[in-house]
């Protein structure tokens, strides 16, 4: 006989992009699932659901994490930042502008994850070397392999932040 799902739920306060949300979460739900299915923030993508591809990258207390591999319960009371918190298509931030100018993406599915990993990098290191950029982005897979343009985008963003 198959195991039927048993669920326990708890109420947590999730701070996303500066706004508190009181949410009743199933104990099995990942942060990614809550962001996408409960809060409707679909910028973070479900590329593998097991921490291999980085498409679901968000920042928790400033650190990039795979939101597919973190339970929502773990994030109660902490600060979550998603790509939706950075700017919209009509008012891109410096990093997004650099990605647009340097063509740092193709199909775009991995793009929000790269943007969040690069955001965390540039907030802790305003003048990264190419090796530091690669180390910061190595957890994000781009199957279109637009890596050359992505590296140039992050370099351009760092340069334009500095000027």
């Amino acid at each position, binding site marked *: 006989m198959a195991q039927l799902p048993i669920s326990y739920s708890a109420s947590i306060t999730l701070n996303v992009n500066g706004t508190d949300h009181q949410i009743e979460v199933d104990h099995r739900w990942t942060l990614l699932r809550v962001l996408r299915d409960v809060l409707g923030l679909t910028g973070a993508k479900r590329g593998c659901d097991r921490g291999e591809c980085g498409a679901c990258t968000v920042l928790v207390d400033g650190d990039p994490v795979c939101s597919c591999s973190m339970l929502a319960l773990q994030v109660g009371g902490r600060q979550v930042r998603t790509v939706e918190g950075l700017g919209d298509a009509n008012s891109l931030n410096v990093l997004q502008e650099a990605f647009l100018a340097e063509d740092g993406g193709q199909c775009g599915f991995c793009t929000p994850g790269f943007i969040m990993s690069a955001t965390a990098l540039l907030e802790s290191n305003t003048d990264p070397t190419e090796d530091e950029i690669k180390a910061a982005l190595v957890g994000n897979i781009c199957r*279109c*392999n637009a890596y050359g343009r992505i590296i140039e985008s992050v370099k351009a963003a760092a340069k334009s932040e500095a000027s």
Partner: protein
Amino acid sequence: MTTFKTIGKSEPRRDLPEKLTGEAKYTADVQLPGMLFGKILRSPHPHARILSINVDAARNLPGVRAVVTPFDAPKGQVAPDMPILDTEARYVGDEVAAVAADDEDLAEAALSLIEVKYEQLPFVTDAVEAIKPDAPQTRPGGNLVGGKPLTLIRGSVEEGFAQADRIFEETYSTPAQAGAALEPRAAVASWDGDNLTVWKSTRGVHADQLALSLALDVPRGNIRVMGQNMGAGYGTKDETRLGAITAVLAQRAGRPVKIELTRQEEFVAGRHRHGTTTTVRMGVKNDGTVTAVHATTIMDTGAYLSSGPGVIRRAGQGALYLYRCANVQYDGYLTYTNTPSGGSYRALGAPQGHFALESLADTISEALGIDPLEFRLKNHVGLEGQPGERVTPANEVLDTQPVEGGVPFSSNGLRECLQRGSEAIDWGQPSERPESGNLRRGKGMGMFIYRGGAGGRSIARMRLESDGSLRLLTGLMDVGEGSLTVMPQIAAEELGVGYGQVLVTFGDSETTPEAPLTAGSTATFSTGTATKEAARQLKARIIEVVAPLLDTEPSNLQITDDGVEHIQYPERSVSFAQIAESVGEIEVEAAISPGSRDHVINSFGAHFAEVEVDTDTGQVRVLRYIAAHDSGRILNPKLAINQVEGGVSQMLGFTLSEQMLTDPRNGVTLNASFLEHKSPTVQDFPEMQVLFADVVDPVGPFGAKALGEPPSIGVAPAVANAIYNAIGVRIRDLPLTPDRVLNEIEAQRGDSQ
């Protein structure tokens, strides 16, 4: 020299801003009120007859709203060899049944309550084994598709080999390479009475509309397919079964249903690059002149045909057409096995075929004491095409994958690619000798030929809308290659307005005219030609209707960014909004079947790699890479460079690390994850330079030819040849993983001792 307003400029990718902010919606992001979640039960056996399925327990689970099995599914076919669901499972992972439930966890639980009785059948997991006479049969008609090989001949290889001073023959293999687009395939289906709407990760909304109509027996006009943003596919996302299953569940539940494949499912049930074994035999004169080429490819299409016939055909084109030679032959054996299904994957079989051909070319060069670059410069096919007699009647359009000789190319920049690429990598200079004793460096190259972009019939519609805006409508999908940016560039240039003024509607079967699949590197050439023609017609119509308004002849008028003005008296002008207000909306539609009766349209290129091999670890590092391409005029340089760089990096995965592994004992895919089917990361990206030959094709729109797939063709031979140059070891089986490199170093040292 022609000056352009937007052609040749790096206009920013039009859909990128919303992708950078997370606003871009992909199929999995679609949320509908009352939507259910679907899950698919998959076969645990590589080959089995399904005797019965008991779904009572699953159906009785609270929250389960619909179930479909092969015994109650609609009887339509989603492909010639594939019904919506079948009572025979043909690989581990084949679709057996599906459920829709209130949420994903319930749907998953329901799957575990379905009881299936299977009768296991004999199976085969290897293509070379599958074509042997006593192999287990995957199908009643036998494993070899069509019962015989595809054979293509120009001249006579017997004669060609008779003319040769020396004959060389080698066999190469390439593994199945998962497409594994980062977006796992997804579909959402919703019924409103008899009308079905499907949101789908696809590269062709009209092809899907037609296929769903046939599968579900619903009139085409009642089905709307919407593409959304597409998280790439490289050709692999062209099956209909997922959409059909989702639609059947939604119909039964009376509510919208979404199915998203998991990553593991995407690896197994998505499509992959076909594994191949290719033997190439070449005859040469002592001076290096090629007298005969004969290639034989055995290709594993897996459990289903999918696009296998096209892939086996394309695997032979290099052997048939890259080297100038009167006597060539290609035999392609496409075989079924009980493994996941192959499909279209960037350049189809061309990378596999070129890997064998261009590796053998280096073996021959070395044996004859001729530099590999010189061997290619001496023998590559030129503008005049191949020797021989034209077979295609003079009034018919020539194939872009010809076998016949006597048909010239519209343009051919292969020689320029060879020359400029070799200069960029300092071909004549040996690689530096690294300091460490275990490191060896070397350079290698490979050249290639590919279809130039003339594809299926394309329709483009252009409109002056009632508010004065200009809009291009096509059914094309931008799958990441950038057609959403390049098409309005073409339209704007032809109209004579700024790039930003042309709005675009893509990828919706209801509101856009029919376009072929975004496939075969044909979008720019084919839909681009239709777009250019539609823009030309719209321009003519606008000027025609404005002439009486400005009291002059059409020949005195020109289009500007703002509207139409008199050439001599620019103050006599009307804006697009005023035109629309006076005469209403203007719409034109151009349908074209691109191609040429006089010329073969092909793209070309040459790739050069410098690698470093660690002879202690077997690790291969690509230090420098030069990709030189003739794709005609480059319409948007930045997007084109991204396309080439991406294609090269993607195929460094194919060359060095990626392969789908099937357990021959039970047909199970052993490595359905990014950790084990190792994708390149940003750290693997080498120093790379992209060069474009100075070619303007006389047929293509604004001189453009195909670009999307060609970057993937030259990578494996360039890297494998560079490894040979570095360590003197020839590895004939991809991928060139560290263990394989080490084993070959050991084995070939052993041979020479």
